[in-house]
């Protein structure tokens, strides 16, 4: 689901047009090895989702797209219970 392009600085004399597409890896989730880290993840999720709900209320679709988000996806994420990643 992700695209990664590589850009090289002037020392390697490549222009943006020379950006090369490489395959993105999808590292696995590393949560829940210890109870403490699980609790911390829950807390972060609760806070993040509350922030997303607040953002949805004050931003229209284009303002959300400006920061890389869509309303339906934000609503979906914001509405998930904290114990679900």
């Amino acid at each position, binding site marked *: 689901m992700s695209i990664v392009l*590589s850009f090289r600085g002037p020392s390697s004399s490549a222009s943006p047009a020379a950006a090369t597409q490489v395959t993105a890896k999808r590292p696995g989730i590393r949560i829940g090895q210890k109870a403490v880290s699980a609790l911390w993840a829950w807390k972060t999720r609760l806070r993040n989702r509350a922030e997303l709900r607040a953002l949805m209320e004050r931003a229209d679709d284009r303002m959300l797209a400006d920061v890389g988000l869509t309303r339906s996806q934000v609503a979906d994420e914001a509405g998930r219970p904290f114990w679900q990643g």
Partner: protein
Amino acid sequence: MRLGVHSGKAEFLLHIGNRNYSSWSLRGWLACRLAGIDFDEHIISLDLAGTAKSIAAVSPNQRVPCLFHNDIVVWDSLAIAEYLAEMNPDVAMWPKDQAARAMARSMAAEMHSSYMGIRNRCPMDMRGKVDPIQMPEEVARDVARLDAAWSNARAKFGTGGPYLFGEWSLADCFFAPAVSRCRTYGLPLSDVSAAYVKAVLAHPDVSWWAARGAEETWAIPPEDASEQKF
């Protein structure tokens, strides 16, 4: 999913959103290009599932852009710009002249914190084109301020090139989305500012980004977009 992991081989990894709509992503990306760093770019695309979750997984403020430099994470385009400027003192990312640099920083900060009329009523749509009609008052006020700021910088410090402070700088990176909005919405500008808009749109990095944005297929539905237009 830990997306804050380098997928390529570069020292830096920049997470961005869709090119056509995400003005903040454009600023961060232009800053990386200006710094001349090797960086990998990861697009968290709006047309794929799980955008909000993907962004939350990498960015402390759940927004793009977000830059990873090994274990250091920098979010917000202005912070990214300053981090890169600090790391690359040999590259004149801000103007060399102290007075010019002070004005450039002030203008970039003003773009970051103000111009709410333009930002709210004229959202970035790089490939879009809107027939200009009567501007709302808050847009007209912002356009006048933008025109004055650009003209002032061009007149005082712009002799060395076509950009605000002559050579391409972070100030131009920060105004690139506003420049794109001027084109999309046909905002009325003085000759000096109109020439500046033309110069920025012709900059290789900006035109490259715009061309890639035009290739993106995801679009905000017209009925939503029409409510934004004037």
